């Protein structure tokens, strides 16, 4: 029996790359649309993006074998324009420096940051393009795999994008809380973001499952694994309840309570989103089943 090739490192990679991009976009959104609400959130998001994406990318590198032992082989990674990994590498190697620069510039850290402060807008525009590309690409990466019918659908990128946005926002909000607890009150404005992204994510996920059940035997097998099979406890528990339902409810409440909600619950909602985001990717990877060939 062929062992399944991808494991936790790839799952983490998909998760962190998504969360990082989301964090970046949250920061940009905050900085552009609502600077007066919470500087902290913009700062947190901008500071988190670079490191998250970098760690994520190194997970991808650590999953390599010969390419890890003989690092120069990694140069070949950009050789095939039809490969999503090639595109990923290109996008990430563009995004990582931009993300770091943005972090430095927005927070005026070090001389570099101070110097680039005047280019913040440019970095935000360029970076946002990279961010959306990265978040979407993590979905496309597995969406093009016709070796796994369950993944092989255009819904994947949409799902990953939505999840990237909510996890990224969660990161930014937690970060903001850490930087300056007093902003928690104002954070509730952003809960609306969670509501929207989580709603989209939930919708797309439902669509994915339902379509898979009818699309092909193999996709159905995967979907079954999630909703009723071996993986169902994790799916319902970690993804649906903790990852979507709970934070969705909390966020709605948070939004209307306008900052009256206990701090722990605010942060709790974000932690839930992160747990859900990671679990979602893990479950999608591990539920992948190959086509029946004989």
């Amino acid at each position, binding site marked *: 029996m062929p062992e399944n090739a991808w*494991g*936790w*490192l790839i799952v983490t990679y998909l998760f962190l790359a998504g969360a990082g991009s989301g964090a970046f976009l949250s920061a940009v959104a905050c900085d552009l649309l609502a600077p007066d609400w919470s500087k902290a959130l913009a700062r947190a998001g901008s500071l988190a993006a670079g490191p998250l994406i970098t760690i994520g990318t190194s997970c991808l590198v*650590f*999953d390599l*074998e010969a390419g*890890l*032992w003989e690092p120069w082989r990694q140069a070949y990674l950009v050789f095939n324009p039809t490969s999503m990994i090639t595109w990923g590498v290109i996008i990430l190697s563009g995004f990582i420096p931009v993300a770091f620069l943005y972090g430095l510039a927005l927070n005026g850290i070090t001389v570099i940051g101070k110097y680039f402060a005047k280019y913040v807008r440019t970095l935000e525009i360029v970076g946002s393009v990279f961010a959306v590309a990265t978040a979407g690409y993590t979905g496309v990466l597995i969406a093009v795999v016709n070796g796994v019918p369950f993944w092989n659908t255009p819904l994947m990128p949409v799902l990953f994008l939505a999840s990237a946005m909510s996890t990224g926002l969660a990161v930014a909000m937690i970060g903001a809380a850490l930087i300056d607890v007093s902003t928690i009150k104002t954070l509730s404005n952003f809960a609306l973001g969670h509501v929207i992204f989580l709603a989209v994510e939930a919708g797309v996920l439902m669509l994915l499952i339902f379509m898979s059940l009818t699309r092909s035997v193999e996709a159905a097998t995967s979907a079954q694994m999630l909703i009723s099979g071996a*993986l169902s406890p994790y799916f319902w528990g970690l993804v649906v309840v903790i990852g979507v339902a709970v934070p969705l409810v909390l966020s709605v409440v948070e939004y209307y309570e306008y900052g009256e909600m206990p701090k722990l619950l605010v942060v709790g909602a974000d932690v839930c989103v992160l747990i859900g985001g990671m679990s979602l990717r893990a479950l999608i990877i591990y539920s992948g089943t190959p086509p029946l060939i004989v």
Partner: protein
Amino acid sequence: MPTISRRKFLAASAVGTAALAVGPYVSFDAWAKAQNESQETKVTPTLCGACDNWCAINVHTKGDRVWKAEGIPGAGKNLGGVCAKGHGFLHELYNPDRIRGPLKRVGPDKFEAISWEQAFKEIGEKTLAIKEKHGPQSIFWLTHPQANHSLNGRFLHALGSSNMFSHGSTCFMPRNVGWWLTVGGKPEMDLEHSRMIVLLGRNPAGGLNLGSLREISRARSNGARMVVVDPRFNESASLADRWLRIRPGTDLALVLALSHVIIEEGRWQKEFVEKYTEGFAEFAAEVKKYTPAWAQEKTGISAAEIVQLARELAGYAPRVCVHRGYHGAMGTQYKNSLQLVRAVGCLSGLLGNFNQPGGLYFPPKPKLGKLDPKDYPKPPEVPDHMSDGSGDPDRYPLVPAGNGIAHAIPELALKGELKAGFVYHSNPIRTNPNPARVIAGYKKLELLVSFDYVLSETATIAHYILPEAFYLESDDVVYTSHSVRSAQVSIRQPVVKPLYDTKPLFEILKGMAGNLGIGEYFKFTLEEYNRASLAPLHVTLERLKKEGVIDTGSRWEPGPPKLKTPSGKLEMVSSILKDYGLPAIPTWEEPLVMPDPKDPHSFRLIHGKQAHHTHARTGNQPYLTEITTLNDWARVWIHPDRAKLLGLRDGDCMSITSTVGKGRARCRITEGIHPDCIFLPSGYGMFSRHFKFGKKHGQGGYGFGISYNDFLPTYFDPVLGHTMGNEIIVRVEKSTTRGA
């Protein structure tokens, strides 16, 4: 959920990152080393030793390491094929469990390395002492006869003993004797040109014969019909048009009924029967009572099926072939096996296929030369019968001396008639019935010498083990068994230098002979012996070693059959059986035992070969055990209806009990087996603690699986003394504890 490889778990953890950083350098060195080993390749033609077919192969070496094998296309027995064992056993050369030099047993399962000189000296003294005290007949030799059989015989006869045993009583005896009685020898089959092939109790796709398989494959491509008669859907049935699921032990009834139909409907080959057979009238009279309806009762095959099969056979005759059998139903598996072979012989007579295209024939054999007796004296004559009664008119007259009844050795040892034994290329403790008794018997011997290359079950109780060089390291004598359609000679030669302190058999015989006062009979070299063998054929040893297999001219030609029976005809009434007052016309004979139809736990235990294992001796080689592991193929077959009654689900563990043995195995529930029996693949149950390597790698090594011999009582067929290996009734129950 797909399994996550261990590497990934590591990788996931922080530790993993460190491990990954180090890991590569370890493995990469290993890899680099593998790459740097000399890539200079060489090809050596020789004969495979992974089973007893001795297929002709070209072995490729890279530097000093064996790399791969390819079949030699012209070789009669394998026609260019090589099986999984032929490939996988090349790695056995490097099995760490191999013996590295002569051993002396100094305690239960305790051995000490000794020099060849010491071994020869001590064996010489002990043997002579035993000969003095108990006479030469107290010495025996047991062997799986191969090319060098002639040399083994020379050695034993020089000692003055006629007790030369083969594995025949556990393998083929009724098949050989039955055909000898009926046509005067063991026929080959022109399967390739058959229009209809019937395999009855013979599974060349499991009990491999690669040449037959190639011929069957070609025959099928040319539109030949094929029917497989077997209680289970064996591997050959995958090649057939039809599978007849016969009740075990009842083939005789089927074959008699087929003859009945052919005769009743006047479809027999009149001219052939007229000219070349003896006793048709008596046979016709006998089979009158064996109607299809009667046979349906016995066999479970519908009368309609039987009539149809008979008509088909008659329709395609004489270009039809009912397989001449081997170990299966026509071998040593049943009490009525001899009658079955005789019946198949008679049926073949009715079909008139002897020496006809697509039928049976005697293969041409090359006439080998001999050493000149003037310079190389032949050993003195020995008694014409053996201690087990083989060749003795009053006991087992039909069992050829020189084959004997191998599984009688323990009895004779216990009775004190046999005192010293030389066991060559045989492992009776695992391959003979009822191991406990076999062990008791062999332990009684005052001297037991084994020549095994590993500490097999038998070797572990021997007093001395003189390891023969492995087949890839060894020379041997000229081999003629590739003579199928044409008379061929072939030879085994070293592919690599011996890895350890081992010797070719000839050197060992010579060494022992020198210390037994029979050195005069071995005053020649193997090379001289082989040159003498080849002399009349005008083939030089050099050419043979270069080409591996050589056609020596004579080919089989269809035509009027020349049969070697007393009457010179195919004897439907056997003159020899008549002389001994035995049933001379094939008659129905019940199997020895039958499962109790009212008891849901009662089954017949049947066994058979798998293509990737040899007897019970390849289960310590990972390249082969992995095939069992991947397919979970050590499981015991059972029919779904019977399984349901026992509350078994596929893969559940069963406990299996007979009057002599107990064991556990997991079940494979399949429609592909007759409800009356369970089927146990015969390649498992190795129990020598020295088989460690296979145990480390999947489903192999010591203690893995069970063997039919564990359940088989010690029987001696009244006429031929064979084991009757499938006459076992077992009680099957669902077990809670695990099994292979």
